[in-house]
């Protein structure tokens, strides 16, 4: 064999190397874009905004099922007990100056852009400023007044005087004033057409934020100063003067009435003969929705949420996951009866004997229709099939009823013992322990509870009902009870319960509790009404602080009239043994030591 000399080998190699050279180093990067490239292209501008929309979901939300279980709305059924004793000093705390800086960079770039026409530029600018106001609002809810940096984009150069970058905290009134003034400045630059899936902010969203910020500020001014020892700092970073309450209530009333009178949204009433279904669809169905003003939207494929998969009843589960959490009896009993304002379920008569029901749903007869629209009750339908909740059999033995429970789905000669859905009291995973399932935010789409697909149901942030209830509350606080009644009765009429003829603030609190269950209102409402430390006072003797479950049993008493009927036990919810304990220090989140180290002008909150 003839050997190729080394000289040729070298030549061939050299030839190969020089051939492989393309202009790899001269390519434009497709991952890093210049300011110029971003702010001259509308698609790029929209995708920057989309990024911001994706970063502003705070507090209770459907991508965190646990967040529903730490208040008095639902309980965690997943595995063993949740031994939470009290709330965190940083509960749902928002401190996102990174995002505020990003938004300010965006505003800077957008304003310098020459190619976007003026009208559109103003629209995008307003949208970005709305998102910024929303971030400030969520910060203020938890922390009180925080530094307001305006449109500044700070740049740090080594050696510079950093004290110029250190802004002190604003007053609590000041941060709400700033949010309100921002909305006033931008609202007329925003679109007044409802977004198809309520995913983008428009003029009405902005007015809703104004109304909510004003009603929060008004109620803090009002109720904080009625406490035995009002929570405030000497600089006003926490605490709003009582004299300002009227001003804020007035602003809240005006802003909410603008939304109400806009004619763009309404209290949906498409199924007047099935008000429960109507209520479910008003909140959960996106197509032709005229009630939801702004929501965290999800879409399949790509952006989906696990809530349905985690919380679906076992009988309807399409994957391994199921029954992570369920609503508790406390919430169910807070829904009124259509013929009585006391919603307590009648499980026993005056002398302590069981009341027997022909079917489990009969217990809930004449309840506020919103109950069945928000919660799956024992024996009600989901996707056209019954959700059976049966803890066991009540067997009559020698004149007393004895519980008989079995394995999930087991039966004997008398029929089913314990349903595959539970409820049970053990530490087993994937079985309900409260006696109820969520209906709100539970997706009926096929395969929405599989790991591969998940759900694309949205999570509303503002809906029309809130505008009406804010107007009602503000009117009431301003002394115009007649107007307050008109508005609250709109909500009650749509819901399907009788109108009120007189009202107090307790009616507002009650109405918000049931109308907005699981919608990230309860915690903030009890905070602003300064009721959280009283309702969740940490006492195991306080039925409002403890959590309760409802266990349905089928009666086995052959030969008696009650055989085959249903009875119910109200009992403490095993999986949450401790009372809810909201302490005075939880009214305001703690300030982080690191923030003070970086900016000594930040004063700490009370109780810190």
């Amino acid at each position, binding site marked *: 064999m003839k050997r190729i000399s080394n000289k040729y080998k070298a030549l061939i190699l050299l030839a190969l190397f020089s051939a492989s050279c393309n202009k790899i180093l001269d390519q434009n990067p497709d991952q890093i874009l210049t300011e110029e490239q971003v702010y001259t292209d509308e698609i790029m501008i929209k995708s920057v905004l989309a990024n911001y929309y994706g970063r502003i979901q705070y507090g209770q939300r459907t991508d965190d099922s646990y967040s529903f279980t730490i208040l008095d709305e639902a309980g965690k059924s997943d595995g063993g007990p949740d031994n939470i004793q*009290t709330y965190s000093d940083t509960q749902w705390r928002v401190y996102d100056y990174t995002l505020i800086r990003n938004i300010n960079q965006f505003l800077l770039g957008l304003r310098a852009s020459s190619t976007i026409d003026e009208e559109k530029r103003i629209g995008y600018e307003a949208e970005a400023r709305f998102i910024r106001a929303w971030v400030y609002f969520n910060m203020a809810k938890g922390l009180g007044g925080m530094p307001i940096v305006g449109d500044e984009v700070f740049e740090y150069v080594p050696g510079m005087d950093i004290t110029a970058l250190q802004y002190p905290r604003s007053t609590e009134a000041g941060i709400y004033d700033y949010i309100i003034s921002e909305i006033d400045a931008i609202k007329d630059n925003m679109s007044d057409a409802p977004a198809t899936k309520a995913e983008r902010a428009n003029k009405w969203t902005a007015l809703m934020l104004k109304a909510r910020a004003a009603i929060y500020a008004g109620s803090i001014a009002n109720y904080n100063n009625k406490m035995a020892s009002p929570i405030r700092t000497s600089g006003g970073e926490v605490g709003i003067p009582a004299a300002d309450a009227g001003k804020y209530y007035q602003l809240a009333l005006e802003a909410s009435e603008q939304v109400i009178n806009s004619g763009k949204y309404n209290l949906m009433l498409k199924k007047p003969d099935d008000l429960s279904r109507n209520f479910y669809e008003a909140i959960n169905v996106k197509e032709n929705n005229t009630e939801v003003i702004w929501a965290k939207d999800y879409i399949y494929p790509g952006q989906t949420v696990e809530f349905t998969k985690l919380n679906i009843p076992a009988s309807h589960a399409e994957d391994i996951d199921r029954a992570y959490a369920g609503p508790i009896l406390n919430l169910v009993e807070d829904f009124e009866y259509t013929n009585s304002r006391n919603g307590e379920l009648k499980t026993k008569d005056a002398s302590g004997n069981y009341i027997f029901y022909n079917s489990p749903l009969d217990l809930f007869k004449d309840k506020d229709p919103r109950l069945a629209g928000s919660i799956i009750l024992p024996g009600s339908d989901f996707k056209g099939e019954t959700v059976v909740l049966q803890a066991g059999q009540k067997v009559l033995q020698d004149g007393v009823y004895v519980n008989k429970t079995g394995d999930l789905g087991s039966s004997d000669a008398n029929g089913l013992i314990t349903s595959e859905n539970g409820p049970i009291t053990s530490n087993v995973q994937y079985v309900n322990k409260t006696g109820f399932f969520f209906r709100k935010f539970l997706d009926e789409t096929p395969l929405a509870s599989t790991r591969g697909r998940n759900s694309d149901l949205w999570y509303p942030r503002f809906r029309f009902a809130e505008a009406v209830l804010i107007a009602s509350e503000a009117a009431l606080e301003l002394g115009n009870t007649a107007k307050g009644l008109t508005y609250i009765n709109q909500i009650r009429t749509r819901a399907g319960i009788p109108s009120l003829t007189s009202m107090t603030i307790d009616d507002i609190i009650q109405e918000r509790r049931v109308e907005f269950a699981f919608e990230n209102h309860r915690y903030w409402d009890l905070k602003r009404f300064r009721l959280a430390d009283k309702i969740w006072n940490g006492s195991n003797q306080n039925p409002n602080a403890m959590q309760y479950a409802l266990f349905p049993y089928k009666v086995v008493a052959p030969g008696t009239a009650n055989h085959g009927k249903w009875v119910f036990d109200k009992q403490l919810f095993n999986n949450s043994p401790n009372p809810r*304990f909201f302490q005075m220090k939880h009214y305001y989140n703690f300030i982080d030591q690191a923030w003070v180290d970086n900016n000594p002008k930040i004063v700490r909150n009370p109780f810190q």
Partner: protein
Amino acid sequence: MKRLLYALIATALFIQGCGKDNYEEPESVISGKVTFNGVPLNLKGTDQAVQLKLYQPGYQLNAEVPVYVAQDGSFKVKIFDGQYKLVGRNNNGPWINATDTVNIDLKGNAEITYEVNPYFLVENTSLSLSGDNKLTGNFSITKNVATANMSYYTVLVSKTAFVDDVSNFYRKDYNTASGNTVSVSEDLSSNETAKNATALFARIGIRASSADQAIYSEVIKIK
């Protein structure tokens, strides 16, 4: 044999690796009590409910060292020698907001008393449990601050020596107390936990409406 040698070398290397680059652990102790007129107060000892703050000035960052107060009012910190300031936590504790600073020059050990002015005091407490599990006794309420209002007083029973508004299995709140000496009468005869317990401890708490938590009596073993 060779394997053993390798193992030995490896072990030697590991031991070798521990250099003397660590600090010695702190040996000095600040201990003390939260007091009123020199008498330690009875407080909530769980859940880090009562805290003092310890600062060491002179450094760039001034993060505090939290000092947790136990239910007999005592506290103890093991820390390095140096100059410290001990400060009350804002609006924390059943007393008029105490933010006085106690300077501590720590060399070895230091014994501190942190004097506060509580709204109420629970005194002369006697509690006992009868054979049929009925809790009786009495205590006196001393209003120490003229403007203070009582939010509630509470009777607490626990299975362990830690008794407070969270650590208990029996709690009964009363919103009004008639007179300064209050008698207690609680029926625990139908309480399963009380029936089966081998030891029981009880305590009285009084919450002033302007305080974030209650002040307590001493813990009394009733069974």
